[in-house]
């Protein structure tokens, strides 16, 4: 019966659908797969196992209710919150005057003209021309224009902030545990402030050269003070007591 041995497209006959007792289970199939899917499976399986172990060891009481259903509870709540904000928008757009004022007049420049305040730091970084070094081998010429220098200063600062999440500084949560890095942070915050002030130096009753020098000196001073204070707090009596009380991880 060679006819019957052939695979048929309508599903009849042997060879297409395996008998039930030969079909591998989903778990077996998963475990047989190789490569990325296998790795993913093992990863989640291990995580699930660890989670299960932790739950068993834990003295916490398991809650019966782990969350609320999306419908209707969460949906109704979200609709309520959304309505409030949409209502605020409608109210403001209905009550505000239709125009914010005359269009800008390019023939007149306002006396005080500044970017939005939260961009002052970037605006200030563009004014670093005086520390753009001129090279003796170029005959006193600058290697890059002041404009490019200011833009690169922005890149450096934004880049430094962007790599912070990738630095693993351990589990310390309190500045006293890491006085040095806490001081670096204080200096950074101070630098953000002083560059912002540098951006509006034309409005300050201070010589712009002094403002410029303070822009770099004040963050150093602030960092030094922060370091000294944190070090002192760490050496102090209360730190040990607190550490015992809160069972902090002992500092390295």
């Amino acid at each position, binding site marked *: 019966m060679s006819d019957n041995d052939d695979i048929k497209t309508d599903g009849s006959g042997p060879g297409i659908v395996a008998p039930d007792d030969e079909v591998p289970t989903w778990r077996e199939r998963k475990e047989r797969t190789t490569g990325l899917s296998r790795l993913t499976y093992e990863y989640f399986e291990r995580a699930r196992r660890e989670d299960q172990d932790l739950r068993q060891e834990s003295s916490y009481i398991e809650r019966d209710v782990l969350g609320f259903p999306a419908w209707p509870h969460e949906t109704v709540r979200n609709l309520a919150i959304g309505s409030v904000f949409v209502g605020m928008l409608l109210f403001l757009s209905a009550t505000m005057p239709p125009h914010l004022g005359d269009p800008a*007049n*390019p023939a*007149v*420049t306002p*006396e005080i*003209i500044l970017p939005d305040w939260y961009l002052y730091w970037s605006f200030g970084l563009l004014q670093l021309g005086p520390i753009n070094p001129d090279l003796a081998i170029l005959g006193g010429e600058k290697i890059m224009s*002041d404009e490019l220098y200011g833009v690169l200063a922005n890149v450096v600062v934004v880049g430094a902030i962007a790599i912070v999440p990738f630095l693993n500084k351990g589990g310390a949560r309190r500045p006293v545990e890491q006085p040095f890095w806490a001081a670096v942070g204080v200096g950074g915050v101070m630098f953000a402030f002083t560059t912002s002030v540098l951006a509006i130096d*034309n*409005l300050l009753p201070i*010589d712009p050269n002094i403002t410029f020098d303070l822009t770099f000196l004040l963050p150093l001073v602030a960092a030094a003070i922060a370091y000294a204070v944190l070090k002192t707090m760490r050496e102090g009596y209360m730190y040990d007591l607190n550490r015992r009380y809160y069972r902090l991880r002992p500092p390295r």
Partner: protein
Amino acid sequence: MANDDNYPVESDRRRFVKGVVGGAALSGVLTTGAVSVTSLTTPSGGGGGTMNYRGANRDLGPAPRSIPQIPIELDDDGNIMGLWPEPETREEGGVEFLVSEREFEVDGETVTYSTEWFQYCGLQTFQGIEPDADQDAYFRYDDAPPTNDYPWMENIIGGSQMNVDDFDQYEDWGNDIGDAGIGQPATGTWRSEDLPPEQTIPIFVMRSALIEELAEEDEWIAQTCPEGLIAFVGKCTHFCCVPNYKQLGESANFGAENKIYCQCHQSVYDPLNIVEEQFVSLPRPEDG
């Protein structure tokens, strides 16, 4: 291993073909993008190009170059005009366009004044910058003269023509900013009558005894600054703000209490130091 036949076998040949096809597609996209960006951003129209001009020296700040000077002529009644020579038609590269030019003899050399000196910062799109625009060349005061900063302008009627007789305190005028006796300043407009603010060309005019002194030595000043009057276009060469003169006390922080000062990025120009510089003037867009 059921999925293995879903994809072709990875081979050197296949990688090579992938590379060639991918590279070709990428370069095609980049070329098309570059061509379209170029064609979209290339300014059309005539006029403009690299030219030498004279202006108030940039002393400080991020501005790239000096602020261009407007040569001045006086009519018989002493009314002040910015020099606007008779337009001529010129052809370059098959495009016909108008120019307003005059040649000055300065120290045995020819200096060409062209109204294309002012084709920057969007001024090139202003109606008044067209060489044959329906505007006269007289300087006019602002509709609302800045009397707070320049108290001498209190008797000035807004929008009236500037006259040299208005500048009679030029030898000792001063306000509470900087030193007195540098010069008597005024702000105004040029070739912008009956035009909206976004088409108004702001100017800065000053009459100064120091300019009269300079005119005795400098042939350019002597020919373009009659009676100690000097004028500049009110557009900072950095980001096109309208700079001011002795209007803001903060200018003293930047050594600009006696100079033209732009409050946007603290550029400083010296109206008493006229230098020759080069810049690329923008073409006027064609009508349409």
